[in-house]
């Protein structure tokens, strides 16, 4: 994806644009919205790497986000460790959960896999509520320390993390690894017959996907300064899938745009008061209906094609 010059220019333009935005329009509100959107971007990209490439739609991505966030919450409030320890810890815990739930369920396909992962997330959400004495119930864990005190500083950190993660996953997607994942999407049986250890590839991809989702969760916890069971909710998973869809499934870079777009949209629609969510949902229907391949990736492909024709 980075091979062509236009792609490199595009990435540079994006990074510069995102970095300059809060400087041109200063204010903690915009920085806050952008930071949250960047973290959603991390979640969306991590989802796309596994589910977008293999075609195994994971409806329980919120599980990895939630365990990452709660790990950060516990480590910070119960053990007093600062946020920089939470990040790797969250990744490890998320990877562990991916292994636990992935092994028995990855042989499932389509709606079966989706439902299995969704069940995992729902169970964790319930457990957080049932064991309210340890987890704070629906009030969650409050009083986390921010990872980086400066609002702008945190934003740039998150942006850098997003770029690094996207670059890494995009490279993986373009490599031999990505090829095999796409082959699995096409025809798993043939891959297996060709001697490819399909299970290994699927499980490692899920673990990688979970690792970054968990990292994002920890970042989120140390930004919002609280963790609540709502992170495990079905709504969270579906929001992320919608973002990937709008961005363009399987493209890795598309979901970044999808995430930023949708988070900004939710906030920009605040001016409509009670009608905010209605307008958001209708917009969603229009996008899903008229742009079944997403918005961001197809646009970029068009831009790329125009550029190539001119040079």
């Amino acid at each position: 994806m980075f091979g062509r010059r236009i792609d490199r220019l595009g990435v540079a333009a994006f990074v510069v644009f995102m970095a300059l935005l809060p400087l041109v329009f200063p204010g903690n509100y915009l920085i806050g919205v952008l930071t949250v959107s960047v973290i959603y971007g991390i979640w969306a990209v991590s989802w796309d790497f596994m589910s977008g490439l293999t075609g195994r739609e994971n409806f329980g991505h919120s599980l990895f986000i939630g365990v990452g966030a709660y790990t950060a919450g516990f480590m910070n409030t119960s053990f007093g460790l600062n946020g920089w320890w939470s990040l790797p810890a969250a990744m490890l815990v998320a990877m562990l959960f991916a292994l636990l739930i992935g092994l028995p369920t990855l042989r499932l396909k389509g709606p079966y896999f989706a439902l299995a992962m969704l069940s995992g997330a729902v169970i964790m959400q319930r457990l957080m509520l049932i064991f309210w004495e340890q987890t704070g119930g629906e009030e969650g864990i409050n009083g986390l320390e921010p990872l980086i005190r400066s609002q702008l500083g945190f934003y740039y950190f998150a942006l850098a993390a997003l770029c690094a993660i996207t670059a890494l996953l995009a490279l993986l997607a373009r490599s031999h690894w990505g090829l095999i994942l796409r082959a699995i999407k096409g025809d798993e049986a043939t891959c297996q017959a060709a001697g490819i250890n399909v299970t290994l590839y699927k499980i490692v991809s899920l673990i990688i996907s979970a690792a970054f989702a968990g990292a994002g969760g920890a970042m989120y916890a140390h930004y919002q300064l609280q963790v609540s069971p709502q992170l495990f909710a079905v709504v969270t998973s579906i929001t992320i899938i919608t973002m990937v869809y709008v961005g363009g499934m399987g493209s890795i870079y598309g979901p970044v745009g999808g995430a930023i777009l949708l988070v900004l949209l939710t906030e920009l629609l605040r001016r409509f008061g009670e009608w905010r969510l209605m307008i958001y949902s209708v917009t969603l229907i229009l996008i899903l209906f008229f742009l079944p391949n997403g918005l961001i990736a197809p646009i970029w492909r068009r831009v790329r094609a125009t550029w190539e024709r001119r040079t």
Partner: protein
Amino acid sequence: MTLLRFETSTTARTSLALCLLTLTIMAPGGAQAQGKPIRIGVPTAMQLQVGRDTQDALKMAIDDINAKGGVLGRKLEMVVADETENPETGISAIKKLTADEKVDVLIGGYTSGVTLAQLPHISAAKTIYLNVGSASPATNAKVKTDYDNYKYIFRVGPLNAAHQARQMTGFISGFVKGDLGLSKVAIVGENAKWVQDLVPLLKKGATEAGADIRATEFFDAQTSDFSPLFSKVKESGAQYMVVILSHASSDIFAKQWYDSQFPLAYGGIDVKSMDGDFCDRIGSKSVGEMAANFAVRAPLTPKTIPFFDEFKKVTGRSPVYTAFGANDAAYIYAEAVKRAGSTDADKVIKELEKTSHVGIPGTIEFDENHDVKPGTPTYKGPALLFAQWREGCKREVVFPKELRTADFVYPSWIKK
């Protein structure tokens, strides 16, 4: 089509313009308040009744204050941001109001989980926050322990869960055991953290007062079938069912209680039952229930009845509890700003701490945690009133005795 043509000369046009300009400047605006308006940010759950009533009650207060000249010669204006029941949306609502809309004060709140999530961000924005809806004591816990960072947080209403627990204990010992003579009680509450914090306090107090707690059951706020719960309560041998319901489906609870002609009367904290149309909208099936209210249309203070009537006139509805807090908060803030002589947060906070305002449910004063003080036999602060739904969906205050408007009546199918 004939066009009318006017002979216009430069002189004529200039004179006309000057006349219009003068008229605009001189246009009467009643008690005109000059200067930048004071902005009140309202983070609330816009789609819910509590949110609507917060806004309406606040608007009533703002209109009244503005009509009387505003505050320090400045008008009040309101900016609303939806916080829903989701902490993420709540935090961004705070950021929108403080960083983008740059409000001078925040009045709002509903779900404790959201308010707790918002606290560090409110503190970072150094903006005063007057809570009108969430009851968890945790929201104000840091005021004393971390005053510099959390001095901005005040609670105008409702009474926090710990105070409510004590008042509920009074309900069980004074009313259930005292008036009705029933000592075997079952406590049923929804699975919310504030309830889970409250129930142990309640059990301890009630047991000390001589009640026999036969069963304590928690259920999910989303429960739609209470048959298992009713069954367990019946089997426990309890004679009265004490409830603590907030987000849960009080409507279904009442309907199922009525439909199955459950042999126990019930009462307690039931937030949804505070709604004026609660009884009507479930087909009068809550007749017999005793529900705690923070205020009913009774002369608790000189302000209570006028507020209820005005609210009904303006909105056509009966107010829910956030309305009382929102209305009072506006006046309390306005008075504090007047005394402080500015909207500077530190100065206003000093004045807010001295508040003693006759509000709608009672006199509003703050303790050292900036939390509203509950009423006592000697202090007329807000207290829980236990009102019973009666035939025709009317409400009568049954407890405490001092404010009783009618005696308790058992539900029609319970023979006692």
